[in-house]
Every structure is written in structure tokens, then in C-alpha cells.
């Protein structure tokens, strides 16, 4: 899922300052799961902003709504009426959701309320970790399901650097050494020979380095 965190209230206040009627629009998928922009977070943020505005004597009307997914036009259509009632939309979706809203509602300012952080997993309750960089050229089959590009601080693709200690990265002891994990995993799988597989230089053309990417599925186009 896409992981994000809500912007500080001070920044949100600044972003919405020019507007008196604001729709806070949540997204019920990824950012809900990481407690950044679901229905509950919309309600708490709306309440916090109302309290701030009342304290400062500023007039503001805040409307709250959450759609299932802000990155799909089919779902964001549900917000059309609420959008028309307000001067601006404070989106608590990821950056993709904010841009999908901006594309759909061309005359309404769509403002981000969340910092989109990474693609990751819920490792345990309250802990989200980055697992994928979306490089477009996945080699997880070779690395035992652990991505060295994302999880190695040095992004080494050809073995460990030698600086790790007790399975932790020398960059920070909070980071598990990806190559330690890869070797342990391959041992458990009986696939240590994978480390002898020659991997040609990674094709970075498939990554974001070559500019924004598109995925085209002709069979789903009409």
C-alpha cells in the first residue's frame, strides 16, 4: 500500500488560509490503513481546524467526506456535489489521489493534506515499513523476496558491503541489513546458488529516473 502521514496542522492552516469553505476529502484505501487520511482522520482534522479557527476568530466552514479511492475517477465522482459547495478541497489522499481530484475538478483548488511517503507494508500494528521502490524491473525472485534496492541503504545489488554488524546496517542500527536478510532467507529456502546467478546491469529505464511512467492495457481500453 501507499503510506503517508498527515501534514502538521500549522502547514495545513497555511494551505487553507485563503479559503472560507473547505471540503476535507478522505480516501478509504491506503491512507486509511496508515491512519493518515481515512474517515476518522478526516473527522479529527476537521475538528482540530474548527477549534483553531474558533480560537483565532476566523470564520470557516468545513465539510467532511471520504470516498473509497481518490485515485479512481469512478469513486471521486461521488464527491462532485460536495466539491461544488466549497471553495477548495483539502485532500487527505496520496499524491496520486490529489492529482486525480485536480484532473477531475479543473476549477477547484485541490490541496494536499498528506505527505505521501512510500510504498510499504504494515509490519506490525502501528509500524509501516518501506518495501518497494516501484523500479519497474523486479528481481525479487533472485533475492528471496527481499528487495536490496529498497531495503539496502546503499542500494547494493551485488552482495553486502561488509559494514553491517549483527544483522544491522552501518548507516543506522535501526535498519536491518537487507543483504543479511537476503542471505538468511536464501539459506532457509535452500537457494544460496541464487547468489551465483549473473544479473546484468539493472534496467533503470523502467524506473522513475526516465520520467513519469505509463502502463497501457489495450485489452481494457474502449
Amino acid at each position: 500500500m501507499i503510506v503517508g502521514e498527515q501534514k502538521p496542522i500549522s502547514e495545513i492552516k497555511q494551505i487553507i488560509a485563503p479559503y472560507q469553505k473547505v471540503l476535507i476529502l478522505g480516501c478509504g484505501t491506503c491512507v486509511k490503513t496508515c491512519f493518515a487520511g481515512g474517515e476518522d482522520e478526516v473527522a479529527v482534522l476537521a475538528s482540530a481546524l474548527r477549534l483553531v479557527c474558533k480560537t483565532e476568530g476566523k470564520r470557516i466552514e468545513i465539510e467532511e467526506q471520504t470516498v473509497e479511492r481518490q485515485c479512481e475517477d469512478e469513486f471521486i465522482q461521488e464527491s462532485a456535489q460536495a466539491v461544488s459547495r466549497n471553495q477548495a478541497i483539502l485532500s487527505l489522499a496520496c499524491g496520486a489521489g490529489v492529482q486525480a481530484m485536480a484532473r477531475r475538478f479543473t476549477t477547484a483548488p485541490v490541496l494536499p493534506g498528506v505527505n505521501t511517503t512510500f510504498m510499504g507494508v504494515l509490519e506490525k500494528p502501528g509500524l509501516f515499513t518501506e518495501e518497494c521502490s516501484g523500479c519497474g524491473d523486479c528481481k525479487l525472485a533472485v533475492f528471496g523476496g527481499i528487495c536490496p534496492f529498497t531495503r539496502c541503504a546503499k542500494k547494493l545489488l551485488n552482495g553486502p558491503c561488509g559494514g553491517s554488524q549483527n544483522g544491522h546496517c552501518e548507516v543506522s542500527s535501526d535498519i536491518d541489513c537487507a543483504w543479511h536478510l537476503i542471505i538468511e532467507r536464501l539459506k532457509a529456502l535452500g537457494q544460496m546458488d541464487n547468489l551465483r546467478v549473473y544479473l546484468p546491469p539493472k534496467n533503470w529505464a523502467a524506473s522513475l529516473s526516465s520520467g513519469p511512467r505509463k502502463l497501457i492495457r489495450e485489452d481494457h481500453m474502449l
Partner: protein
Amino acid sequence: MSQKSQSKITVFHCINVFGDGDALPAVASASGELNFIKLPCSSMVKDVFLMRAFEAGADAVVVLVCAEGACRYVEGNLRAKKRVAWIKALLDEIGMDGRRLALFNVAAGDARSAKRFIQEALSVAAALGPNPAAARSRSDVALV
């Protein structure tokens, strides 16, 4: 002190601390206006409930939870504690002062301790003054 007599306190409490048959802590009405809200478990005190209590004009909010290790649902009071800490930080961030929100562990039916904690919250509310958002008339700001 005039502010003290006007303080409004919202008290969220687990029904396992004070159930239907138990007497709620009696605090002299002159001390402040108390609004008790019972919950099936303190873990049900969602972030937004605490915020809405302040929106509704509370000068302070108290959450009474079971003693640690005594939660019928094992960890409900621990979850409530974490949520309260989160909202206290949010209140500080928005300039409301997190001290307006407090959580206390109370043994089942211990009205005496609960009364002491509520009086403590009343003192904090009196020291901090009225809820700054409620100090302005509700009609000043339109709510949707």
C-alpha cells in the same frame, strides 16, 4: 475564583469503572459542570470523541479507565492511554494546551479516587482558563 465555578468537564468512563448500578463520583455542582459519558470499554474513546467534547465547549476532558492489568478486554485501557497521549499532543499543536485532557486509572467503583481526579481536572481547567474555542460564541464559526 469565578473561572473555577464555570468550568465544564466532560468525563468519559468505562462502564467497568462505574456501571449502571454504581454511584458516579459526586462533585459539588458549584465546582463545575460535569458531563459523564459512559463507554462499554475505555478503548472506545475514539480520537474524534475527545475532540468533539472540546468543540462542544468542554474546558477539560477526563478519561477514567480501569487499572492497568484489570481491563476486561485485556488492553482497552492501554489503547485509551495511547489515544489520549496522541490527542494531548494534537491539542498542544493547535494551541489548546494538552493539559486540558487527562487520563486516570481507577479501580472499579472507586468513586473517591475518581472524585479526586475530577477535582484535579477542575483545578487544571481553572488555572488554564476557559476553552479558548468555546470562549467565542458558537455562532461565530459555522459548522457543517
